[in-house]
């Protein structure tokens, strides 16, 4: 209560101070700005009132409520004034389109900000295992995040570039994982030999999926890909003689460092380099393996975008009929997109198998597909940086807040809704052209088609 009255007292004072100032205040709808600030203050009161204002304390007679309204008043005041200032300075928006909520300053430098964030992410990714305070948990988490970054980039080719909504992407992840697991346990092949094989096999399954869905678009395509993902999982689950069924495949060999195993004793990695044996060596090695794999995925997708094949994918997303009239075969374009997207999923899968040492169909459920798709959609279809950020935020956040088990999904859902309201086309929605004459102008999200199939 006290907070609102304080807010109300502030109200008349602020605008008179700004109204007298010429320049930036000109053309601002004062009533709208005030209303916005008051609403924000009320929301803040609702949130902070309970969280900061009330506290339960252990007292001799049981729990007692301890009140502390001063903090609440401060919090609400900060929100009110801050909102007011933001509205008067950075967020001067006439229409109030939701997309314009992004600060003007940030928009202007979005190219630079993007490069800076990208460079910072790469730097952190490269040095993560050696950062102070980074323990086994962080490196493991980094490995997991990078796996999803890679999966996101792979799916991005199918969904973001070619505009084909694929709900069964995890099938290729499974194909890659089982390819490696089976080849390694049956034929005793090493990880580095199996990696390209996993890629090829996943590509092959991408084409197998591609054929029946060539004529499908939109929702219909999504349903068939969803079914395909389930078919692969069910086959893995039931074909016990081949895949081990629900028991999965264990004892999957770990990758070696140019033939050196990460084992204790003679001939191991630590022994060869004269280091003390540490289980961290393998974890850090795995981290760098996935970093390299993700980097390769990134480089290849960026290159492909600038090649005729990538332009054909994007053209197909924009207008399939125009593509056909220009001599582009839709069959070839769709199948290559499915195949290459699937191939990267397969690489990630092979890595997953070698990292875990054990795989079972349980790891390849629909929720995984949905998660990868959410990363691509939230990050911004077609954007490499957006997908990486989304993967870091979603997977990282997911794991980091593991303690709040019960609320995790709630926050996760709310976050998705918020991002979709704020930026309906994902975090990084502008499209960078693949070729330019004078200036690389970003293409606004409203121009870019999302594809019909």
């Amino acid at each position, binding site marked *: 209560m006290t907070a609102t009255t304080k807010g109300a007292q502030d109200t008349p004072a602020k605008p008179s101070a700004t109204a007298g100032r010429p320049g930036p205040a000109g053309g601002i709808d004062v009533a709208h700005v005030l209303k916005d600030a008051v609403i924000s203050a009320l929301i803040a009161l609702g949130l902070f009132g309970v969280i900061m204002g009330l506290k339960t304390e252990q007292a001799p007679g049981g729990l007692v409520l301890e009140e502390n309204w001063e903090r609440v008043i401060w919090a609400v005041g900060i929100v009110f004034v801050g909102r007011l200032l933001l509205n008067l300075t950075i967020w001067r928006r006439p229409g109030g389109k939701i997309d314009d909520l992004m600060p003007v300053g940030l928009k202007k430098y979005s190219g630079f900000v993007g490069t800076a964030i990208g460079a910072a992410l790469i730097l952190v990714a490269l040095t993560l295992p050696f950062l102070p305070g980074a323990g086994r948990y962080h490196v493991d988490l980094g490995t997991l995040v990078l796996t999803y970054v890679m999966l996101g980039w792979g799916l991005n080719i199918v969904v973001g570039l070619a505009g084909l909504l694929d709900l069964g992407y995890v099938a290729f992840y499974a194909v890659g994982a089982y390819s490696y697991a089976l080849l390694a346990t049956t034929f005793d092949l090493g990880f580095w030999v199996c990696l390209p094989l996993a890629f090829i096999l996943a590509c092959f399954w991408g084409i197998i999926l591609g054929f029946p869905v060539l004529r499908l678009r939109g929702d219909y395509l999504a349903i068939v890909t969803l079914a395909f993902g389930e078919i692969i999982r069910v086959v893995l689950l039931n074909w016990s003689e081949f895949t081990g069924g629900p028991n999965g495949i264990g004892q999957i060999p770990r990758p070696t460092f140019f033939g050196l195993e990460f084992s204790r004793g003679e001939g191991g990695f630590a022994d060869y380099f004269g280091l003390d044996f540490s289980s961290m060596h393998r974890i850090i090695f795995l981290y760098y393996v996935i970093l390299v794999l993700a980097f390769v995925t990134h480089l290849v997708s960026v290159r492909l975008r600038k090649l005729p094949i990538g332009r054909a994918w994007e053209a197909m997303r924009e207008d399939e009929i125009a593509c056909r009239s*220009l001599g582009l*075969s839709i069959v070839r374009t769709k199948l290559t997109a499915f195949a290459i997207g699937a191939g990267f999923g397969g690489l990630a899968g092979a890595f997953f198998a070698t990292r875990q040492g054990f795989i079972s169909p349980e790891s390849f459920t629909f929720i995984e597909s949905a998660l990868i798709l959410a990363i691509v959609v939230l990050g911004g279809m077609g954007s490499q940086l957006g997908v990486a950020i989304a993967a870091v935020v979603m997977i990282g956040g997911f794991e980091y807040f593991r303690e709040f088990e019960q609320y995790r999904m709630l926050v996760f859902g709310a976050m998705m809704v918020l991002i979709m309201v704020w930026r309906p086309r994902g975090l990084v929605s502008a499209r960078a052209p693949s070729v330019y004459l004078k200036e690389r102008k970003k293409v606004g999200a409203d121009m870019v088609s999302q594809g019909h199939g």
Partner: protein
Amino acid sequence: MAGVSDTILRIDHLTMRFGGLVAVDDLSFEARRGEITALIGPNGAGKTTVFNCITGFYKPTEGRMALSHGSASAYAHIDRLTASPQQSWEGDGEALFLLERMADHDVNAKAKVARTFQNIRLFGGMTVLENLMVAQHHYLMRASGFTFLGLVGAPRYRRAEAAAIERSVAWLERINLLQRADEPAASLPYGDQRRLEIARAMCSDPVLLCLDEPAAGLNPRESAQLNELLLGIRAEGETSLLLIEHDMSVVMEISDHVVVLDYGKKISDGVPDFVKNDPKVIAAYLGVDDEEVDAVEAEVGQ
């Protein structure tokens, strides 16, 4: 009509039925190399259906559509080709394609027929330059070693890409859009989009360019620019044009030969002046007086 006919496209007995509806009924005509052939007719006459058949978007119910490269002497092989299961015949410097046997993308990629659409179909989210680059897909694809060479950044691909950009720039200069090369195609004004679509079709190196109502929605000035562009393409002699048009000022001014359709049938065929004064054409467009109905119907043959 002109003495020597160097036919580029020969359409024989083309029929297209949709269920019970006969959209094109036993249509035969020829388009000549280096000329502008116009296909006109009232709304619903079946013009766009003919286009969709020629460009492979529809499989015609009946009929033959033969396109020649090089010279019309390729037509000497037409009967042998028709009897064989092949799609095309190729001799030295000459080739003959049976369009009804080809898939839509092959009609462009192999037979070199390009088209534009009645409702413009640009790649809206891609820049103007990218639109023209997509049209040079096959050239770039070969140069990039089907992606593999391009992926490792082979100099051969870089040269080819530079050449493709150069070619796009030449076209952009020609359609006066060089300044907007890096802007998304969807942001262009309507008239510019029309010209860009034509330039994009031309970048795929066609021998026959099919334009579906290129002047629709253009103002008189833009329409005049369009005429200039089309006449320029004709003057170069590499590409023959086939166009559907409602705007008679465009049709009569630039076309060498006009084919008139009504209810899927050809009702007139000749030079613009002949067609303009043909009573059947006038009847189809303007209708006739009540007392003349019987006489005209007898003449039209219904």
